[in-house]
């Protein structure tokens, strides 16, 4: 079952259009000096977590919001490695920033054009756990953990942006 991105309430894109970075981040951010470039390998994704946790701490995100932003970033990065590059060598660029009301983290990669949200699957609660297809669960967790999850193909690069409101208390 495909997850209906348009069904998610209180998020840009609920009308069904493709959510772009401009929908998430009101002012197009300049490239942040706080940036990270890593090889697309699972073994180094803890650097993404460190980056996001430091950014979130600086922004004063409360602990649950920070956990969710880190979870979303981790799942998105894992998805880029596993389903974007599919084992091929490559690089992931991560940057992020703090706006007055939100924190954003942006991922860019050169894998084949790939909107991670298309692989998203909501849990099939009516299927016994042992029989469930669990592909797409990571992206589902990412999408439901942040306030905005945008994707754009920019000059041939995949660009995904995650946003967490600083006042988030969900």
């Amino acid at each position, binding site marked *: 079952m495909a997850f209906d991105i348009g069904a998610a309430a209180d998020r840009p894109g609920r009308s069904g259009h493709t959510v772009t970075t401009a929908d998430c981040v009101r002012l197009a951010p300049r490239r942040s000096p706080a940036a990270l470039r890593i090889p697309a390998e699972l073994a180094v994704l803890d650097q993404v977590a460190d980056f996001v946790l430091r950014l979130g701490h600086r922004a004063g995100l409360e602990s649950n919001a920070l956990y969710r932003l880190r979870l979303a970033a*981790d799942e998105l990065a894992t998805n880029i490695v596993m389903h974007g590059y599919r084992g091929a060598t490559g690089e992931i660029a991560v940057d992020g920033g703090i706006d007055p009301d939100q924190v954003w983290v942006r991922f860019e990669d050169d894998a084949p054009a790939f909107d991670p949200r298309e692989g998203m699957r909501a*849990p099939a609660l009516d299927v016994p*756990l*042992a029989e469930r297809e*669990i592909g797409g669960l*990571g992206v589902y*967790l990412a999408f*439901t953990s942040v306030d905005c999850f945008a994707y754009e193909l920019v000059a041939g690069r995949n660009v995904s942006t995650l946003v967490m409101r600083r006042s988030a208390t969900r």
Partner: protein
Amino acid sequence: MAFDVRLRVNERVATIELKGELDAGTAARFHETVDEAAATGAIELVIRAEQLSYLASAGLRALVFARQKMGDDVRIAVVGATEPVARTIKLAGFDHSIDLVDA
């Protein structure tokens, strides 16, 4: 980031204690331990999660594996999960099949 997993079996109850961060980089160790627990013929699997500080979808896949490997008759319980870890398990809909205790 640190992760540790320990298995002990007592009177056919297998207990797996998790510490640290369970993500794509560490899930293989949890998966192997679930396999070991299943091989003991345990009738119950208790996963102590009090010191599990982070759970990603890779860890959830190991829970699905546990359910597949141990069969429907084996009770699987996750004990003492922190609020965000329990939230992730619930969000994935796993709490229909795995008991969340003291979460």
